[in-house]
């Protein structure tokens, strides 16, 4: 039916896990495929139709100059551009290079680094083009993805929970690992969406869904230091899959300065 919105999935520097989440929505996949016209989704289909597209899902971060140009074209072709996952939303784990020396990184990995074309930074899609909606997660949650797609198909603006992971822990009856076991956990400053998995498995949250709105990372960092962590140990806690999200970046930089005694 021609009234079905067209869907396109684009990949930049990423692991494919977020777009795989769509295929992982086993129960809803065929319904989704019936509700939208999948026009461009190379991972799932050899049929690749040209744009424009109604809904574009963009996975991955911008790490090459070619991709920096390609995202502009994707934006032009897309009515509603939604980023999926931590790479597209915050630069991903590969944004660790943003604190390092990319040339040296290349040397460490490749015998002939001079052949490699890459930018020195890994940046979020929103640093390059206007993004209409960001779906967080490393990886995204396929229930959330289906919910967001449903809302777009129904023509309403998607809304995903903006509360902290703690709320979900408490709803599911998980005992706080920080309070009961002294494990540093990013739950209080991390946006919910994963279902609060890690504390339910006896480990601290490591921030897959990025900073919750108005998060108070500084207070949490100070508390961990007051209870025995060193600033240096805490830097990687904030500096991982969403480490380049502004709030976590600021906190890891602050801790790094403290670790260096600045």
């Amino acid at each position, binding site marked *: 039916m021609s*009234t*079905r*919105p067209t869907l396109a999935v684009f990949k930049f520097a990423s692991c494919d896990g977020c777009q795989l989440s769509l295929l992982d929505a086993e129960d809803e996949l065929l319904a989704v495929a019936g*509700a939208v016209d999948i026009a461009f989704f190379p991972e799932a289909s050899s049929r690749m139709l040209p744009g424009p597209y*109604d809904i574009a899902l963009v996975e991955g971060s911008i790490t090459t100059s070619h991709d920096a140009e390609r995202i502009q074209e994707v934006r032009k072709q897309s*009515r*509603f551009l939604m980023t999926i996952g931590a790479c597209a939303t915050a630069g991903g784990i590969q944004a660790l290079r943003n604190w390092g020396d990319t040339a040296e990184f290349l040397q460490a990995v490749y015998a002939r680094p001079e052949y490699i074309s890459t930018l020195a930074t890994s940046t979020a899609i929103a640093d390059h083009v206007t993004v*209409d909606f960001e779906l967080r997660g490393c990886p995204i949650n396929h229930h959330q993805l289906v919910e967001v797609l449903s809302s*777009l*198909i*129904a*023509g*309403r*603006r998607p809304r995903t929970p903006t509360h902290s992971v703690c709320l979900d822990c408490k709803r599911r009856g998980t005992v706080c690992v920080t309070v009961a076991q002294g494990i540093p956990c990013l739950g209080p400053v991390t946006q919910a969406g994963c279902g609060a998995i890690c504390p339910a498995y006896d480990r601290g949250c490591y921030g897959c869904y990025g900073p919750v709105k108005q998060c108070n990372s500084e207070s949490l960092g100070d508390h961990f230091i007051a209870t025995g962590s060193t600033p240096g140990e805490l830097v990687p806690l904030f500096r991982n899959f969403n480490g380049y999200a502004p709030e976590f970046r600021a906190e890891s930089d602050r801790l790094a300065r403290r670790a260096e005694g600045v």
Partner: protein
Amino acid sequence: MSVPDPLLVEELSTSPFAAGWPHRIVSEVVPISRQVLYPAGSIIFEQNAVNRDLFLICSGLVGLDMRVPARGNVRILTLAGGELLAWSALLGDGQMTATATALEPVRAIAIDGSRLSDLCQHRPDIGFHVMTRLAESLSHRLTATRLQLLDLYSHTTPHVLTFGAREH
């Protein structure tokens, strides 16, 4: 100087501008005031023109328009009975910042601005009363303008997607 018009005295002393003033002060202002009438549609003064009168509107609606390049005359405010008009006649050099138009038949008291100014200068007691009322009037006007600036009724239209809309 003519004999004070008893109606004018009555009108002035019951107006919000002079309400509560001692009689001696009202009687000082009456001689420099006069009743004026403007038919609907007439222009009371023009933007940038010099006007020497401070108007105290008794009845009728006055529109204040400002010329905006490419937009023409924009009505920024309407004033009605009890409100002051053309305060630049007293505080400024008499050059009007807006055009005032009588939107309905307007009856007003016009007070000679330069003589009122002289009076205020030489008679601090009169000056105090006049300036207090003027300041109150300006303060209300400023508050109202701020509220207008806040654009309280505006709201951002939510991002609406129109494709595939389904009936419930």
